[in-house]
């Protein structure tokens, strides 16, 4: 299923899409679709992740590979809060 949406783009963006369209031998609509899909998927993954969705669930929802979800989440640059405690536990269990 797909839906037609008419959007008005600023000149600079439209110009860039024209250039890309010529370079990639693709219609401008295809180039625009590619960029929109990429940004929306990233936005969606980050938003749902913050809400508490798991990685495999996100891959299902966004219909992208698990590796791609992890790649997007890498941009958040987060770290585990309990990593030091976990390491201490591993060290003490030896």
């Amino acid at each position, binding site marked *: 299923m797909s839906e037609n949406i008419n959007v008005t783009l600023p000149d600079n963006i439209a110009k860039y899409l024209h250039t890309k369209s010529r370079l990639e031998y693709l219609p401008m609509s295809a180039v625009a679709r590619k960029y929109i899909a990429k940004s929306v998927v990233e936005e969606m993954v980050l938003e749902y992740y913050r809400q508490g969705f*798991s990685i*495999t669930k996100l891959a299902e929802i966004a219909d992208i590979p698990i590796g791609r979800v992890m790649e997007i989440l890498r941009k958040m640059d987060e*770290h585990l809060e309990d990593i030091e405690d976990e390491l201490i536990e591993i060290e003490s269990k030896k």
Partner: protein
Amino acid sequence: MSFELSLPTHPSATSSAPYLASFVSPPSRGGCAPFGGTNVVLSIGSNASLFSHLPDPKSNNAYELVFILKYVFRNNTHEHFKYFEQYIDIMQYIVNATFLINTIKTNIGIIESIELNTIQNVIEEVETELGIGIKNEMNIKISTVRDKKYKIKIPKSKQRMLSFTDLKLLGIAYERKKSCILVTDDKQLRTIAKHFQIHSYTTPLFIAFMIKNNLISKDKGISFLSTLKEYYIRPKDVVIILNRIKKWR
């Protein structure tokens, strides 16, 4: 026969040494050389004598026992080990797709030395993602756990945030929580696992665990983590663990 073993201690278990000593040391059962720490020299007279002294399957010590027996029977037939698996019905490392994808991508043979457990869905997820047959084309020892209805009760509000695969993995890990480690890089999955007292490690933490328990060498672990850092979901974690591991003797 005698075997030199290096035993990883399950995070939730207390020291297994006294228990193991009581299990294998009486001369009538073959005898056991003195041991300390995690290095054990085990001598057994015959396989049959061990079969009659199995511990309580629900105890933490069952984990160590299976680990020993895997070594004991490594050079023997697979049938021996199957016997114990059926009796004790226990697992060690339950992994999900994030862990497998991360370890396979690095292309450093880190998981060949251990036996992993998972479910068929995970195998399919990884095979689709990487376009390779894990069981047939790779040198990984991975067993799939049979499917059944699990007792874990996850609230509906949380269930909708997890995939079918996540729910199944949690179900398996919950039933065996005293004797397994769930290895996943999914923060949300770990949070829920912890809520149900399931022990869980991320890939870098699991590597630290493996190094500490002599399942892999320190050099190999460092080499793996250095590669993993380049694309891992939380690179800061890898840096923290790498720095810590480098200080280990």
